[in-house]
């Protein structure tokens, strides 16, 4: 079972002075937030005093997630991965969204390399008011030539501040690159059965996190990790069980990821309690198919592994369409499943509405809002949309739970100024809210309330067949 902390387990390692430096009213309140992962230990400034050294150490140990947090890169662009406490997001929101790294290699034309780095720097997709971005660059050594690799790494460094993964199985190649990039704390890829001692030394010397790679062999993966941990006293690992994709082996990959995560969290096997690396880019060297087939496959592999516990992914395609589903799925799966997303209540304009445009009412559940908005837009309708505060619930549940009532529809119409926007003095409420129409009509006095369709997909038909005829006497 995953460890379940109580505030007292944490409180005993706090200064217990209730000084309030952290912004909480008491150390106990801070403890409660710590176990909910809502605040970080650094907020307790007194704990950094030398006299609390032992407590701090013990506290960090108690708070350590079954999957360790590992940081790649340096501030302000450092990313932290791992830190997972649960298998399933309905138990507790997943922390630290999967990092998405795009590859370049040392035999690319410089122009191509810079183009790819800039693509990563500039990539931005805005969705529901949030900006979705890529996280960093994986530099692969194709040449097996230290000079070439270092040149590629310095070119990348010249064009980005984002964190890097340096990829080669040759320690000599990596060492030279680390002399230029080591202080940027890149992730080193990878220690395997042959090179693990040299790689461990590099990781220790440059204080960079290290990928431990044992494709398809979980016992070797565990053995390597434990050996490096024991002999080199290292603890910042990322595990690579291999990303197999051809001939349906993606299923084996998903199984390995799942079983590793299950062992770390439910089985309390701390030897595998580290972030997991997936390499959807392996599609490009393993999978038979044309480029578009590879892009499709790479995207599917990325989304699948993200669903099943990958903490960092290396991707190759820099086309927007295969990245889009991955980055949107990441945004979705890392939200808090207990909090329904909502939009701000009030009056919204869709298209270019005027005083003759329909006035529609809906709930402030984000999905409801976006679906309604989308249906109205898609049908090229100009409309006013009154979004009522239903505490982020859908129309159907809000009506049942009395969170969408005639009173709050009326109040929102008044306070948002919606009533002055139209001359026709009619309002259209959702089909699921039909039973509020009488009461709303009483409140609105000389206004007319129309009961619209249950599904906004039918809004166009409703407006043309019913509303327009009733209001303007138009015939089809």
């Amino acid at each position, binding site marked *: 079972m995953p460890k379940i902390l109580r505030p007292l387990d944490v409180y005993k390692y706090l200064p217990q002075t209730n000084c309030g430096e952290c912004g909480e009213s008491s150390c106990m309140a801070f403890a409660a937030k710590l176990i909910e992962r809502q605040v970080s230990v650094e907020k307790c400034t007194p704990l950094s005093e030398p006299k609390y050294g032992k407590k701090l150490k013990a506290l960090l140990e108690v708070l350590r997630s079954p999957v360790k947090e590992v940081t790649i890169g340096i501030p302000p662009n450092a990313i932290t991965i791992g830190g997972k406490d649960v298998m399933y997001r309905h138990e507790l929101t997943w922390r630290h969204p999967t990092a998405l790294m795009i590859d370049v290699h040392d035999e690319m034309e410089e122009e191509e390399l810079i183009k790819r780095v800039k693509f990563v720097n500039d990539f931005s997709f805005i969705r529901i008011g949030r900006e979705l971005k890529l996280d960093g660059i994986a530099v692969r050594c194709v040449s097996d030539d230290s000079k070439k690799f270092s040149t590629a790494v310095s070119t990348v460094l010249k064009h980005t501040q984002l964190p890097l993964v340096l990829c080669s199985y040759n320690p000599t190649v990596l060492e030279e690159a680390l002399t230029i990039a080591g202080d940027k704390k890149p992730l080193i890829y990878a220690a395997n059965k042959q090179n693990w*001692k040299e790689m461990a030394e590099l990781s220790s010397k440059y204080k960079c996190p290290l990928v431990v790679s044992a494709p398809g062999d979980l016992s070797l993966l565990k053995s390597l990790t434990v050996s490096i941990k024991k002999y080199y006293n290292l603890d910042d690992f990322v595990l690579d069980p291999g990303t197999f994709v051809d001939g349906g082996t993606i299923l084996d990959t998903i199984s390995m990821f799942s079983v590793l995560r299950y062992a770390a969290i439910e089985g309390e096997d701390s030897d595998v309690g580290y972030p997991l690396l997936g390499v959807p880019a392996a599609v490009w060297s393993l999978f038979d198919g044309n480029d578009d087939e590879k892009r499709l496959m790479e995207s599917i592999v990325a989304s699948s592994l993200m669903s099943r516990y990958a903490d960092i992914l290396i991707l190759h395609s820099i086309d927007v369409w295969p990245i889009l589903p991955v980055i949107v799925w990441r945004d979705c799966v890392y939200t808090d499943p207990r909090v329904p997303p909502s939009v701000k209540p009030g009056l919204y304009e869709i298209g270019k509405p005027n005083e003759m445009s329909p006035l529609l009412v809906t709930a402030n559940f984000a999905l409801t809002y976006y679906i309604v908005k989308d249906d109205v837009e898609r049908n090229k309708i100009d409309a006013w949309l009154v979004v009522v505060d239903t505490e982020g619930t859908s129309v159907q549940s809000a009506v049942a739970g009395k969170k969408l009532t005639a009173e709050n529809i009326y109040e929102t119409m008044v306070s948002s100024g919606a009533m002055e926007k139209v001359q026709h003095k009619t309002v259209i409420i959702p089909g699921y809210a039909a039973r509020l129409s009488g009461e709303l009509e009483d409140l609105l006095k000389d206004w007319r309330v129309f009961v619209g369709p249950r599904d906004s997909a039918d809004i166009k038909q409703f407006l043309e067949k019913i509303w327009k005829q009733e209001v303007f006497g138009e015939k089809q």
Partner: protein
Amino acid sequence: MKEEKKEENEKIVIDLLKLLSETDNVELEDVTIDAEEFAIEIVPAAAPGRPELFKLSLEPVMPGATGKIEFLVEASPQGLRVLGVPPVTPAAPAPPKVVELLSIPFKYPQLPYTSKIAEVQLGATKSEGGSRGVTYKLGGYSTPPMFLFQETSINRPLFALDVFDMRPTLAGPVKRSYADVLEDPVAWAKKCIETYKADLVSVHLVSTDPGIKDTPPSEARRTVEDVLQAIDEPIIVGGSGNPEKDIDIFREIAKATEGEKLVFASITLDMDIPKAVEPLVKHGQNAIALAFMDINQAKELSRKILEAGLPKNQLILDPTTGALGYGIEYSFSVMERIRLAALMGEEILQVPMSCAATNAWAAREAWMKVEEWGPRELRGPLWEATTAIVCMLAGADLFMMMHPLAMKIAKTFAEALQKVRKPLSEIPYEKWVEAKY
């Protein structure tokens, strides 16, 4: 001269303060300082090869005062930068004495699941009382979908393509795949099976909606019979979503196709459930129960249907699929919770789950023409395939899909379950690093 000296002193003090603030700690032991002012001096590189060590000396400046304190400080890398000392390559730590790879076997965790998902048969052959040439089994799993390594022989998820009994409004990329059959459900069904290799088809009798064409049950029945004549596979019979009319439709068709083990979709909480279930029980048909993204609603619905007499192995649960980007995470978590609860012993949830991945086309990222987003002929199907596969990983077993390419991607994924796959040791995964692509 004096001004310059003062300025320099101030600079040193600022630097020193910075240095101290960046240094982890400075400990002074057995020291008493009894002076109003100090002279502070920093002497760099106190030890050869250790540029991070500085000698710090404090000396009282009061005339006649004595007592100079000297100590070493170790600057942090940040502090070194403040002082402008170039960083050096750190010395390699002394290699450990014994370095042999330990051999520690990874133990596959024991999974706690005790129960099994019911196995539902879709379609019946002549000898079983139906007329289908092809039948399928769905469900029967005893682990969540991602722990497949423990399953030996396993039913794979199944894929139905949508067919409509009247010309529907479809997204551009979907429409193109069916342009020649949009008016003819029989030809449409044949195309889904023969050209696009769907496992089965889902015939949506949308025209029966009283608000659309109000097609009578007898006519809807003829459409279904014609499709059954044309293909060998079982079908899903989809109503219009009108809770009263659908019962009439189900009754008419369930009777006419007695023993075929078709799937009737959907039974919802706003229906008269005993009335809806009765013909399905009587004529040996399966049902899909549609709940709205809520595990408690799913339980209530399932319990009512089972209480109305439908055997568990004739029921499939549809917890509602939100499109990728439009609520899919709720579907993902509800499906995951339903499947885990079922495997842990919640009887009323021990049934296969269905997923209308077609809902993916509600997302504008799937259908909208936007040049920067890339071709929607690929983007759309990928959106639908991703929606399906994400739900598959959460436990969905029966997929309603629309775009042939999306279905092909998801189906290939599922088919691998029953395939003899290459041993991983024979696959050169490592090559991804040095391969040129």
